[in-house]
């Protein structure tokens, strides 16, 4: 993990652009409060915790014309948990985003397509994985203070761990895939404040950690021992579900380069056999862009 961190740091700093070049480095530090890290249905299985996260991302923009171009970013993220250190992780990845504006001006429609890849390394190996996300968004700005977008995405997580505990069940609980659609609106009531609301629906595999019970056994197709919560009764399950999530966020610009941000994410997953779980995350972060 330390080697991965050194590599990530070297990668990001190596693309640190000279002043005023069309490149940038984004750093954001967050404090996150999770209420249900196990994604569990039953109260006794739910595990809340708090985490500190650090994002470091270096990007470069290549304009093909005044209307389209591609952003390439190298992204690293580290998260450290207060109680469940098995969930500590470091993620290193990259994103390529092509964006095209249909015309001239701030208020014309645009479309983007993006591909992200990442490798996640956890302190407890069960969650180690490679991730791929392909997404597209269509949006437009309606005024200086109003904008909106709709989008779709395919996500694929290639879980590394495959230790089967139960005959007939796979051990790849973090080998997941899904498709999602979302809509987002942004409103800036003042020069400094930006409010954003996002609604998303995702269909696909989810992971839920819980004590063994009959419905989850019926709904799941993969099961593994989950050591991250230091509870021998907890197992990780993979099951198909539909997840509805809503995000509300507020971003206060401290300058043209930095902001303080607050977000609230509420997710509700619904699966077969009356299985369901709700979780929410509150995040407070400071973001800064160089140069």
């Amino acid at each position: 993990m330390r080697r991965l961190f050194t590599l990530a740091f070297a990668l990001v700093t190596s693309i640190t652009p000279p002043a005023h070049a069309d490149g940038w480095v984004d750093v954001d530090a967050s404090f996150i409060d999770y209420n249900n890290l196990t994604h569990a249905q039953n109260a006794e299985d739910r595990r809340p915790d708090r985490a500190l996260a650090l994002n470091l991302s270096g990007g470069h923009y290549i304009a093909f014309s005044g209307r389209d171009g591609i952003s390439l970013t190298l992204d690293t993220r580290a998260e450290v948990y207060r109680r469940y250190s098995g969930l500590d992780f470091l993620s290193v990845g990259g994103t390529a985003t092509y964006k095209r504006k249909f015309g001239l001006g701030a208020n014309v429609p645009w479309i983007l397509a993006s591909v992200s890849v990442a490798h996640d390394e956890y302190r407890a190996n069960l969650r180690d994985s490679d991730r791929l996300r392909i997404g597209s968004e269509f949006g437009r700005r309606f005024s200086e203070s109003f904008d909106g977008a709709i989008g779709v995405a395919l996500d694929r997580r290639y879980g590394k761990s495959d230790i089967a505990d139960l005959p007939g069940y796979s051990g790849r609980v973090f080998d997941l895939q899904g498709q999602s659609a979302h809509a987002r609106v942004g409103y800036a009531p003042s020069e400094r404040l930006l409010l954003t609301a996002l609604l998303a629906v995702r269909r696909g595999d989810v992971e839920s950690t819980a004590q063994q019970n009959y419905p989850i056994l019926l709904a799941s197709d993969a099961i593994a021992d989950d050591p991250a919560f230091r509870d021998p009764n907890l197992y990780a399950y993979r099951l198909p579900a539909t997840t509805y999530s809503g995000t509300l966020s507020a971003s206060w610009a401290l300058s043209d380069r930095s902001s303080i941000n607050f977000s609230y994410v509420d997710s509700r997953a619904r699966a077969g056999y009356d299985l369901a779980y709700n979780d929410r995350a509150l995040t407070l972060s400071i973001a800064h862009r160089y140069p």
Partner: protein
Amino acid sequence: MKIDSMIAVRSTPWRTHPLKATLMVATSVLIMTTRVPAAEITATVTDDHGKPVAHAVVIAMPVDGNVRLPTNPPREIVDQIQQEFTPKVKAIVVGTPVIFPNKDNIRHHVYSFSPAKRFEVPLYSGVPAQPVVFDKAGVVVLGCNIHDWMVGYVYVSESPYFGKTGEDGTVVIGDLPPRAYALRVWHPQSEVAEETTKKTVDLAKVKQAEVAWTLTLKPEIKVRRAPVAGHGGLY
């Protein structure tokens, strides 16, 4: 302070033939000694809280409508520095060519679709080869198609007598022929239309006049430039 463009034009032919130049100097001296001394206007713009308003353009239009526009106004500059138009507001007389040098190490794509001037300087770095000639009076809003937060203004005046307030909210418009003028003020965030700010001064009677406006300014809402957490580096 904005120097009377007509004087700048008058000075150009001095670089021509020595005999012609001498003749012109003699004529100018004659004009200067015979004409009535020029007058000036000191204009002050403050906001509702009494704070000085910078970047306000004050225009003095002779009431008789009789203006002689410069035939070949000198080229003006609007730079792009650290992904902003500098200056944010540029006041020019109609017919002025403006060049948009890009002082950043990245490319910009400057445009406007204001009725007074539609133009596009496609994706470029350095100094564009051709200036843009602003041949119609009015307000031209500038944008960059790469950086949506970039906003600038070119105020194209139909009168050669104008100026832009400094940080102290004051501008002195000098070298005005002694006549009656209708004065107006324009600011990008002004709540009221420029036409409603009209004031008249008669410089045939006084050599110096002081004019003051109080403008109610709308908050400046620009497309946001500051980063948002978790939106790592998307334009």
